């Protein structure tokens, strides 16, 4: 993975010094809260419902063991002994004291980490496919380009005060595991007819109040032009994006108002006008960066049957929580942060340390975070899987539910976030209880539930097969349910099925929805395909069939 050189190290240390000075000025009354807010946001610090929240960047979801240990130590010292992994592959600590934040950032800098641009109206952490570099069908590893974009976007002099936040995701496989089509910019690595590497460029995807799927504005952008073209997009947005209304300030609104073709024409015109002074990525730049992401030194191993004669629970874990690897004899292993009874995406300090140790023993010392709020050990020899399972099981990290209904995505909700209307975590626990029977869960197959506590859609509810949105009704928490969304394979936005339901009815309503699926499915037909085949109507009827309080 990428390693800081002296220049990167100097930069993060200077950033810490700057924020220390800004925090001092704020605490001394020299910077008002209004003046301090954009500065602290650009260093990842929110002031939340109960206490500050610090969002630490995990660029494209890649961590060394020492970095994860540092996160564990920070969680223990400054949070309440745990951290929350987000859909954008970052980590949130929930209880740091404002005055401690400069020290936390200084500690992060000692392990080549930071919280720069994890919030605020600027280019956020660049995310990637968690299967980068190991996926069977990959065209090219997206991570070198993510790191190039990360560096380019870091304290970009022109684009640090955009109309609104700006999220970029890069994928290198046909399957989109990074929700790239609901990002402000989604870049898909591809090869031209002549075999040249480049990107398809999608712009204007996003969730929130007006969910939209990104529009393809360029079918093929050569690698060399990556940064120049990004500058053209960002410049059009920075100049013409709306700043009068926070709810209309995302680039998707600009793309929609101009139309995809109109927006593309502006970007192309800007790009042509600025090409003479635009950055060009040289082959040497790309090669140098690719050098940081070379495959580790795999041993020559053969694929083997590791489940023969083992416990059924191990076999289930192998089936659900491990994935095929490009290299024979290896598997990718999900570390499930979706234990029933736990908060989706949360890991304790002890769990983080155990995963760090495990990564050093069996996976080249690297850990990945995933869009689905789990961790991944990417390169585990198959003959170590049983040992890995035992260790994960002992840590509560082997819940064999990856890809099932209880591998759900949820924002932290009302318990932590000042924006939320509803307590997503309690609903997640209800769902886990309702679907605690693993045989039943496995019979349901792949169903993605995504839940957000408010319209901002941090839990991506629009693109869940089943989406759950918390709404406030006269001070009470109600939940709106949508069906048919997807972010994986093809992107679709779900449709709300009817009136919202009270909190205690959410799990039971989902129970009725999946029963409709069980009754209507063809053999081996996944939930989303049944839904697409038969339409919403029977699900709508089933969902409310026994609902006493539908209103």
């Amino acid at each position, binding site marked *: 993975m990428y390693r800081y050189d002296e220049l*990167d190290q100097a930069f993060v240390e200077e950033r810490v010094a700057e924020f220390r000075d800004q925090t001092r000025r704020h605490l001394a009354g020299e910077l008002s809260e209004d003046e301090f807010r954009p500065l602290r946001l650009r260093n990842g610090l929110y002031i939340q419902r109960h206490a500050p929240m610090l969002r630490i960047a995990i660029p494209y979801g890649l961590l060394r063991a020492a970095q994860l240990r540092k996160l564990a130590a920070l969680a223990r010292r400054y949070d309440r002994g745990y951290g929350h992994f987000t859909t954008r592959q970052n980590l949130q600590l929930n209880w740091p004291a404002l005055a401690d934040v400069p020290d936390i950032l200084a500690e992060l800098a000692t392990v080549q980490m930071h919280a720069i641009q994890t919030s605020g109206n600027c280019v956020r952490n660049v995310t990637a496919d968690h299967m980068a570099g190991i996926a069977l069908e990959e065209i090219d590893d997206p991570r070198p380009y993510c790191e190039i974009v990360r560096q380019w976007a870091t304290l970009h002099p022109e684009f640090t005060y955009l109309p609104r936040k700006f999220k970029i995701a890069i994928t290198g496989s046909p399957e989109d595991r990074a929700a790239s089509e609901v990002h402000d910019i989604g870049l898909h690595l591809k090869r031209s007819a002549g075999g040249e590497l480049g990107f398809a460029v999608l712009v204007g995807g996003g969730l929130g109040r007006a969910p939209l799927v990104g529009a393809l504005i360029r079918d093929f952008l050569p690698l060399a032009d990556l940064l120049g073209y990004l500058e053209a997009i960002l*410049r059009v947005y920075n100049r013409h994006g709306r700043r009068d209304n926070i709810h209309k300030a995302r680039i998707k609104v600009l793309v929609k108002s101009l139309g995809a073709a109109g927006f593309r024409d502006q970007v192309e015109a800007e790009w042509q006008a600025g090409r003479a002074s635009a950055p060009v990525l040289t082959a040497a730049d790309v090669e140098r960066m690719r050098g940081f992401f070379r495959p580790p030194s795999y041993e020559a191993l053969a694929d083997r049957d590791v489940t023969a004669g083992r416990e059924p629970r191990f076999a289930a874990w192998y089936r659900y929580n491990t994935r095929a690897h490009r290299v024979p004899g290896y598997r990718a292993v999900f570390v499930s942060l979706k234990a029933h009874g736990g908060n989706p995406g949360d890991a304790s300090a002890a769990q983080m340390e155990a995963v760090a140790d495990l990564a050093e023993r069996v996976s080249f010392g690297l850990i990945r975070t995933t869009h689905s709020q789990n961790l991944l050990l990417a390169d585990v020899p198959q003959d170590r899987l049983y040992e890995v399972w035992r260790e994960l099981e002992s840590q509560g990290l082997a819940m064999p539910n990856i890809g099932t209904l209880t591998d759900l995505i949820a924002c932290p909700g009302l318990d932590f976030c000042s924006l939320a209307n509803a307590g997503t975590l309690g609903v997640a626990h209800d769902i886990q209880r309702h679907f605690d029977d693993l045989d039943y869960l496995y019979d349901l197959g792949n169903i993605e539930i995504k839940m957000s506590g408010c319209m901002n859609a941090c839990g991506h509810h629009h693109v869940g097969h089943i989406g759950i949105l918390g709404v406030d009704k006269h001070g009470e928490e109600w939940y709106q349910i949508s069906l048919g969304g997807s972010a994986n394979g093809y992107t679709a936005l779900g449709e709300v099925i009817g009136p919202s339901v009270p909190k205690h009815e959410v799990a039971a309503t989902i129970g009725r929805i999946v029963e409709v699926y069980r009754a209507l499915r063809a053999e081996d037909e996944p939930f989303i395909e049944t839904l697409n085949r038969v339409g919403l109507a029977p699900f709508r009827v089933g969902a409310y069939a026994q609902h006493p309080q539908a209103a």
Partner: protein
Amino acid sequence: MRNILRRREIVADDWRHLGEELAAGASVILPLAELRAGAARWSAWRGRLGVRLTPADAPEDLAADLPRLNLVAVEFPNAGDGRGYSQGRLLRTRLGFWGELRAVGAGVKQDQVFLLARCGFDAMELAPGEDLEAARRALTRYSVAYQPGAVDANPGRQRFFAL
């Protein structure tokens, strides 16, 4: 008398905004609308002329005027409105303006000057109450940059993807 930052030094401002007291032959900064509306008066003005852009103004519209302008002021009404960074960058790189490029407005504060300088601003008229000495020091807060910036505003060490 107002002090400003110009080329990394604190200096007395030798320009006046329209509406401030103007001696004959003074160097004056006009709103773009005034430059157009009062064309006859200002073409006969003996002093130096500058123009002030609001965030919504397109710097491209100024192309024909630039040869007779000694200064372009770009307004930052608050710290969050970043349109001026693009305006400045375009004036320097695309429109070839080499006169004084000055950031003005309530959004021009010590925490912005490093970015401003790298977008090509060589002068900053700081918001009222700002500590100019602190702002001057903030110009060298970073020794490193990841992007090419204005020629004379790059910190000592840079790594960016080639031009």
